[in-house]
């Protein structure tokens, strides 16, 4: 049971990668990439968790109470921002690819290049 959070993180990464490999649509591919990236949120938050500790907000709890790790939570915030930027740029590139080649299927894009 204690390994569940780590298992979920690993599963999200693998299932997202499988989606990317199987994808026939660039938009869907970008969504699969965000599934991969969400595995890092689960992993970071799972690592910082402490049994019985409070959320890292020092109000309404006794002074000196144990808190879950705030550093990994701040890292997760950075992670979310980076994911948003990557998704935005990839979607813009997908729009460009559609405008240039008239298709969103990555399999059809490849031979056109070569």
């Amino acid at each position: 049971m204690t390994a569940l959070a780590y298992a979920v993180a690993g599963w999200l990464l693998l299932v997202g990668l499988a989606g990317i490999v199987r994808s026939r649509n660039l938009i869907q591919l970008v969504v699969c990439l965000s599934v991969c990236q969400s595995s890092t949120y689960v992993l970071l938050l799972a690592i910082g968790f402490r049994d019985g500790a409070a959320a890292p907000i020092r109000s309404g709890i006794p002074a000196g109470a144990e808190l879950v790790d705030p550093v990994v939570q701040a890292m997760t915030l950075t992670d979310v921002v980076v994911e948003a930027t990557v998704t935005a740029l990839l979607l813009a590139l997908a729009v460009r690819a559609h405008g240039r080649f008239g298709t969103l299927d990555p399999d059809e894009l490849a031979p056109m290049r070569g």
Partner: protein
Amino acid sequence: MTRGGRLAIFAVGATGLAALLAWGFAGLPDFGTFDGRMGELISSIAVPERHATNVVTAVTLDFRGFDTLGEEFILFAAAVGVLALLRLARSEETVAADPDEMTPTAGSRSVARVSAALAGPAAVLAIYVILHGHLTPGGGFQGGVVLAAALLLVYLAGATIRHGRIKPINAMELGEGVGAAGFVAIAIGGLIFAASFLENFLPLGVSGDLLSAGTYMPLYIAVGLEVAGAVLVILGELLDQALLTSEEDGE
């Protein structure tokens, strides 16, 4: 390469990756027993030294403040990149979107009315989340996204993206720039009024008060403006593309 062949190769690689992950996770501390010295230290000094009850904010804006500066500029660069990619695309279009034409954006009346009703509360929530970032969960990043959502609700309620002489996209770009510049200005303020870059030079106040924790609130206001601006610029450009495409399909 055929799809089947590619999937077979992926299956081999994925099995190997799964094994590596399992090996790596086995070496991590057991769930719930993390011994993070740095996190413990920051948790214990955030209130006494910075008067910020939200410890994550203390990490984001202070102990890792320099990283957050970089993070803000990643977002800024991404918005500029999307603008560059998509405006270039638009200049290639033979039919340019008429900037003075009124185009209703919502096809459904119920969507328009629900959006109109929700826009105000969403904006208030956004301001609340941004201003209380040093006290309770929230802050500029989260609040900025809610603020962008509030403005998108206005758009869904039937306003136009380019309405007469007022061009909200310019206001979004301005908000984005002001937010990014504001963060740097406050950081340099630390250099002028205190000893170092990003140092907290404003009075710390009483822990738990709205006006406390010094520069955290102005920094998060800057972040909120930057995030809301960047999200709106990116979504605005992508929506513009969608409108262009649907116009072409309609003709």
